[in-house]
C-alpha cells in the first residue's frame, strides 16, 4: 500500500460538527482497508480564492492533511465519496514524496555553454541533421545545366 497525502478543505463549522466530519472521513478510509499515519491540522484560514461547493460559496476553510496508506484502487472510490460529502469544500490526493537525495548540479549549469553537457549533446545532434542553410538541392539529371524553363 503506497502512502498518500489527502489534502482536505472543510467548510467553516463549529467544533463538534467538525469532529463528526473528521471521524466520518476517517471511517471511510478504514472501511476500504486503509490506515491513517498522521493527521495535520493547518488551521482555519481565509482561502486565497473563493470556491463554490454544493451550491455555496466558501471564502474560508478548515485545512487538514491526512497521511494515509490505502490500496491504490480505493483512492478513486474515496475521492468519489468525499466529492459527495457536503462538508468537504475541496480535496486533493498526492503521493507522499520521500526527501530526494541528489547532488547540486549548479556548478555544471553555470559553465559557459560550450562546456555544458546538454549543449554538447545538442551540437552532436545538430551535426547529424541536414544543414538547411547550406543545403543545395541536387537534380541528379547528369547535366550541368537545368534543361527546363525555370
Amino acid at each position, binding site marked *: 500500500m503506497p502512502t498518500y497525502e489527502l*489534502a482536505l*478543505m472543510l467548510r467553516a463549522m463549529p467544533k463538534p460538527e467538525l469532529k463528526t466530519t473528521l471521524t466520518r472521513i476517517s471511517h471511510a478510509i478504514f472501511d476500504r482497508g486503509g490506515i491513517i499515519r498522521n493527521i*495535520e491540522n*493547518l488551521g482555519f484560514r481565509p*482561502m*486565497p*480564492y473563493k*470556491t463554490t461547493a454544493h451550491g455555496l460559496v466558501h471564502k474560508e*476553510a478548515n*485545512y487538514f*492533511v491526512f497521511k494515509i496508506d490505502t490500496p491504490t484502487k480505493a483512492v478513486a472510490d474515496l475521492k468519489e465519496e468525499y466529492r459527495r460529502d457536503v462538508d468537504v469544500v*475541496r480535496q*486533493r490526493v*498526492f503521493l507522499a*514524496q520521500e*526527501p*530526494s537525495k*541528489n*547532488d*547540486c*548540479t*549548479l*556548478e555544471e*549549469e*553555470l559553465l559557459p555553454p560550450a562546456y555544458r553537457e546538454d549543449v554538447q549533446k545538442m551540437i552532436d545532434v545538430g551535426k547529424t541533421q541536414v544543414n538547411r542553410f547550406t543545403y543545395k538541392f541536387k537534380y541528379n539529371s547528369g547535366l550541368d545545366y537545368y534543361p527546363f524553363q525555370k
Partner: protein
Amino acid sequence: MSLIKTVLTRYVLPTSYRATAARFSSTDAKITTSNDEPVEMDNPYKKERRQCILCKLNITPDYKNYRLLSQFQSPYTGRIYGRHITGLCKSKQELVENEIRKAQNCAYMPYYYKDKVFLKDPKLFDPENPVRAHRF
C-alpha cells in the same frame, strides 16, 4: 669532503637505498631535507563548489510549506520566477515549480498575487539582477 659526500649519495648509492632512508624520517623532516623537490598537494587556488540555496541548506520544497514557496513567486503577478532569477539547480527548480502548482491547486497559495502577509519576507534573490539575461 663535502664534494665526495654528494657524489657518493648521488651516484654510488642506489636509488632504492635513498628512498628507504627517506622513508624512515618523519614527514616534517622529509620536507626540510628534500627542500628542492616539488611538494605534492591539491590546487590551493581551486574554487569552492557552488551550490544552490536549497541544496546548501538541505531543504526539500513541500507544498504544505507555502510560506517558503511564496518567496519564489512574483508579488505583482503571482508568477513563478525562472531558474535564471532564483539561481536554483535544475532539479530543485523543477521541484519548487511542481510544489507551487500543487499548493495553488490545494488553495494554500493564490495564483495571481502573493499573499500580503508574506510580502515583507526576506528576499532570496533579486529579480532585477538575474543570473542570466531575461528572455524578454
